């Protein structure tokens, strides 16, 4: 017994050794590298330009493997540039990787290329962490990206970042249940309006005796603004002003109030649960499920009995305009880089057709380039095609703002408060005060 106790204690005291990051030079050059550098050389014949790139995943993940492989291919294709990739885990809440960037910023030790999450773009531009890459990216190349990728990476009319993958949210549905109630799913040309969604959800809820719609309201955090902001956009509203700092009259506009009132209507009618049961769609209990591409592999592999499909994101009955969530990690050249031209080449390489195909195959997120689709048969049909098509038609990046984290939090709190019964107008007015107060620090 004493042994067990001491064993338990030993377990507790064991310090898990966490590496800060691993580097691999993704080179596959063989013994003749010496002659290579001599013959081609850099601009001054001083050997290849050395580039450093940081990515936010470890090299034992599928995503990390894809990055390592594509970086190696880059070195293979460019005799005059040599890139070294450092793999830095994000840790909980993304703080590990971002902490390292913050520290490196203080000590001027940023690499040439970094990865960054979409909503960070404006803050990183404002802080002078990343530099524009307009002059290095050709127009043909730029037109091949999904519009939402360009929107996400552009601040004040200048392009700063490019991504290889996208993300989105669609309305997944259980084909069998919809057929049972003779409900026609929405299409890209004719998506469901909020009213269609409400009527369908009400019919099914009454018939099945279980909330028909799961909007993942239990996922409190970034999910809220990411997944629900399109309700406001589709209704003709905005989250924040063009300057990224004005909330009065925008965050609490009538359009926003209407969108939040619609959530309230769904909750009051009992067609959506504020605290949905785990996996209720996967188990065939609910019929409609607002979720992203990551839900597909789970459904296909673990719940083969569920006959599911996806339809585009519901639209406001007022405008019928399709706006869908977007955003993912992207690459950018840092302002500290001494080789911006070469670094921009690397950014474009990491997001070229081959790289996009590679990353989509690795983790299944929608491809960021139109030209990649022909190499990805899974994105030519079914739920994945719906996600991709709606991205091309109505992709809308989250607001670009220095105070984005504050906006995201207040949006989440506002929706949450409404779900718990507060009045939408009052709540939004209150949150505007908070955002405006915070914005005051940055208005100079």
């Amino acid at each position, binding site marked *: *017994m*004493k042994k*067990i*106790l001491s064993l*338990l*204690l030993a*377990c*507790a005291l064991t310090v898990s050794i966490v590496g800060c990051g691993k580097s691999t030079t993704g080179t596959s050059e063989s013994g003749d590298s010496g002659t290579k550098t001599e013959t081609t050389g850099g601009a001054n014949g001083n050997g290849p330009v050395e580039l450093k790139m940081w990515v936010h995943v470890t090299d034992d993940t599928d995503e990390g493997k894809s990055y390592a492989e594509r970086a190696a291919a880059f070195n293979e294709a460019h005799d005059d540039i040599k890139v070294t990739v450092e793999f830095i885990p994000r840790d909980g*809440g993304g*703080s590990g990787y971002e*902490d390292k960037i*913050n520290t490196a*910023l*203080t000590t001027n030790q940023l690499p040439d290329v970094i990865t960054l999450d979409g909503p960070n773009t404006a*803050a*990183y531009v*404002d*802080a002078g*962490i990343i530099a524009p890459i307009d002059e290095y990216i050709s127009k043909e190349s730029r037109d091949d990206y999904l519009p939402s990728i360009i929107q996400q990476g552009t601040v004040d009319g200048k392009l700063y970042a490019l991504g290889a993958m996208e993300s989105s949210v669609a309305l997944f549905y259980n084909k069998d249940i919809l057929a049972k109630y003779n409900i026609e799913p929405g299409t890209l040309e004719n998506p469901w309006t909020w009213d269609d969604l409400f009527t369908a959800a009400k019919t099914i809820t009454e018939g099945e005796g279980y909330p028909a719609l799961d909007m993942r309201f*239990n996922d*409190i*955090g970034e999910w809220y603004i990411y997944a629900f902001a399109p309700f406001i956009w589709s209704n003709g509203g905005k989250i924040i002003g063009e300057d990224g700092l004005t909330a009065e009259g925008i965050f609490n506009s009538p359009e926003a109030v209407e969108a939040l009132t619609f959530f309230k209507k769904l909750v009051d009618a009992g067609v959506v649960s*504020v*605290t*949905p*049961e*785990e996996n209720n769609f996967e188990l065939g209990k609910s019929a409609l499920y607002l979720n992203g591409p990551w839900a597909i592999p789970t459904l296909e592999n673990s719940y083969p009995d569920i006959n599911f499909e996806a339809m585009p994101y519901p639209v406001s009955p007022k405008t019928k305009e399709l706006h869908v969530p977007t955003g993912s990690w992207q690459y950018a050249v840092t302002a500290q880089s001494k080789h911006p031209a070469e670094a921009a080449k690397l950014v474009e390489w990491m997001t070229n057709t081959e790289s996009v195909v590679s990353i989509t195959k690795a983790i299944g997120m929608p491809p960021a380039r139109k030209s990649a689709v022909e190499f990805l048969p899974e994105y030519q049909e079914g739920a994945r095609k719906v996600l991709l098509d709606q991205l091309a038609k109505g992709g809308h990046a989250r607001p670009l703002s220095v*105070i984005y*984290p*504050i906006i995201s*939090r207040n949006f989440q*709190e506002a929706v*949450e*408060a409404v779900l*718990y019964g507060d009045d939408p107008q009052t709540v939004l007015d209150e949150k505007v005060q*908070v955002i405006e*107060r*915070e914005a005051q*620090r940055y208005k100079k």
Partner: protein
Amino acid sequence: MLKSKKLFGKYKLGETLIAYAFLAPALIFILIFVLGPILASFSYAFTDYYLLRPNDIQFIGLENFKYLIEDKLMWKAFFNTFQFIIMVIPLQVGTALILALLVNRKIKFNLFFKVSFFAPVVMSLVVISILWMTLLNPESGLINAALTTLGLPKQPFLTSTTQVMPTIVAVSAWQGAGYQMMIFLAGLKNIPAEYYEAASLDGANGWQKFLYITLPSLKNVTVFIMITTLIAAFKLIVQPMVMTSGGPKNSSLTIVYYIYQTGVRYRNVGYASAITLVFAIIVAILILLQRRLIKEED
């Protein structure tokens, strides 16, 4: 001369130097990793330090503190933290005392119980939080299933603005009580058996023995436990971070969690430091008060 006399006391200069030399490694570490950051953080409280602009820090005087007074969310976090402390201290210390009394008896499988009660203390808080989230799930959790079997209504637990704090209190007390139990146990072992024998001769029953012998003898241990539990309770962050993200409607947002969010997520290091400073002062006052109160009772 006078100063050096005080510093070195009755020891010779050589001995004193050796003593400081031995202390040096620890002192240097404390200076660099404890005192340094504390002082830096206090000085940031008067600046507009933004995490992404480390080379452009402006002194802004008391701006942060003015802002702080109007910050409703921060007051809510303070209120939540105090709510937690007021509930968790009696519950956790009481549970620990009962557990200690139970395992102090000579019963079978005594060690097994001790290890079981202590096990949550050595487990990772994140693991425990995730475990309880599963148990507390309003729809499919084991606890609600048990309640339904007993004919009681299902409870929302972590998804209710009023139940979330008591739930976190219960989980935290369950997790931490084992540690205090061990300390109480050590205290119990120190009470001489003669006291109880004498009391038995005088005809005292079990309850009287507990009231007039056990409790007074545990006084010092209890003071120690109260203070350590209070300090630990102020630092509550992991449970709400993992289980509720501070929700619903910020009902489980604690002050340390809010400081973390302000400094790391919103990158407002200056403002986060200002909250930390105010928080540190309040904690210090409370601990001094608590010690005073307990001492006066002597």
